[in-house]
């Protein structure tokens, strides 16, 4: 049994109810999909018992067709050399999730960015304030799929040419 399979096995035996899906994706990669209300406990288990200690990223994905947002914590284990992605799905209308700041201290800016870009509220996060966007931003969170970018710069260019008095 490989190290990856052992990790999956131990998570499955400890939390049989709360794991939706857990599998080995390829060498060095495992994916654990969990219920959103137990993510904190599973995070603690991953850190303390299995040695996943080095936070790599926190990202969100907007599945607009299913009306769901997915939050993915990717954590690297320095000893085991495995990257685990701990993922959970939350409803798109009222996205709240318990912050994992007490599990991995390094998620401070990652969670803040995810809040800003997807509008996911992390309960217990000390400082959810604007990080990257311009100060006067009042649109929807930009990485959601219903925020659309302009299709063509044409109008702008014509305006500029007119102002400059032709080519």
């Amino acid at each position, binding site marked *: 049994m490989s190290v990856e399979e052992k990790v999956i096995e131990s998570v499955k035996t400890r939390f049989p109810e709360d794991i939706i899906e857990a599998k080995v994706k390829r060498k060095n990669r495992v994916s654990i999909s969990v219920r959103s209300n137990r993510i904190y406990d599973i995070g603690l288990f991953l850190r303390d018992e299995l040695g996943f200690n080095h936070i790599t990223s926190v990202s969100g994905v907007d599945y607009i067709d299913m009306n769901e947002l997915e939050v993915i914590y990717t954590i690297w284990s320095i000893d085991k050399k495995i990257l685990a992605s701990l993922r959970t799905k939350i409803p798109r209308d009222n996205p709240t999730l318990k912050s994992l700041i007490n599990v991995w201290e390094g998620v401070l800016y990652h969670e803040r960015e995810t809040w800003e870009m997807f509008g996911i509220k992390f309960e217990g996060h000390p400082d959810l304030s604007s990080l990257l966007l311009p100060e006067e931003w009042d*649109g929807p969170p930009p990485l959601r799929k219903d925020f659309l*970018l302009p299709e063509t*710069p044409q109008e702008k*260019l014509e305006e*500029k040419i007119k102002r400059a008095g032709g080519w």
Partner: protein
Amino acid sequence: MLEKIRKSFMNIKLLRKVFNWGRAWSLWSVHLETGCCGPEDMARACARFDTERFGTLPFPTLRECDLIFVTGFVTKKMAKRLKLTYEQMPEPKYVIAIGHCAISGGLWWDSYSVVQGVDEILPVDVYVPGCPPRPEAWIQGIRMLQEKIAKEGLKK
């Protein structure tokens, strides 16, 4: 009164030429990097390309500077600071827009946080295209600005 005397002095053609010559050859630039042409700013100021030969020296205090390089794209958040920096510089002051992003938005033409061309907020004297422009292009930009300054205030 002083202003009047200054103005009448400036109308003398020879004196004006001397002033222009002095201005053109001591263009000190502000250190404000807005985009990713930053390392080329370092390269053009240091040993190999050495724009100090043409009197352009990066200087930390903006109160003693008369040139601002807009190095690359300008985000909306940076635009306010850029304008503030420009306003604090003493007259006369000049702006060189470096790179496609500073000229027209470039690669970020559909971005939600990038200003589409720095000429929407500052009066630009010289445009230097490239992504990023080579240091030689920067030098040409500086030379073009010098030529422009040399003709300033003189009848054609």
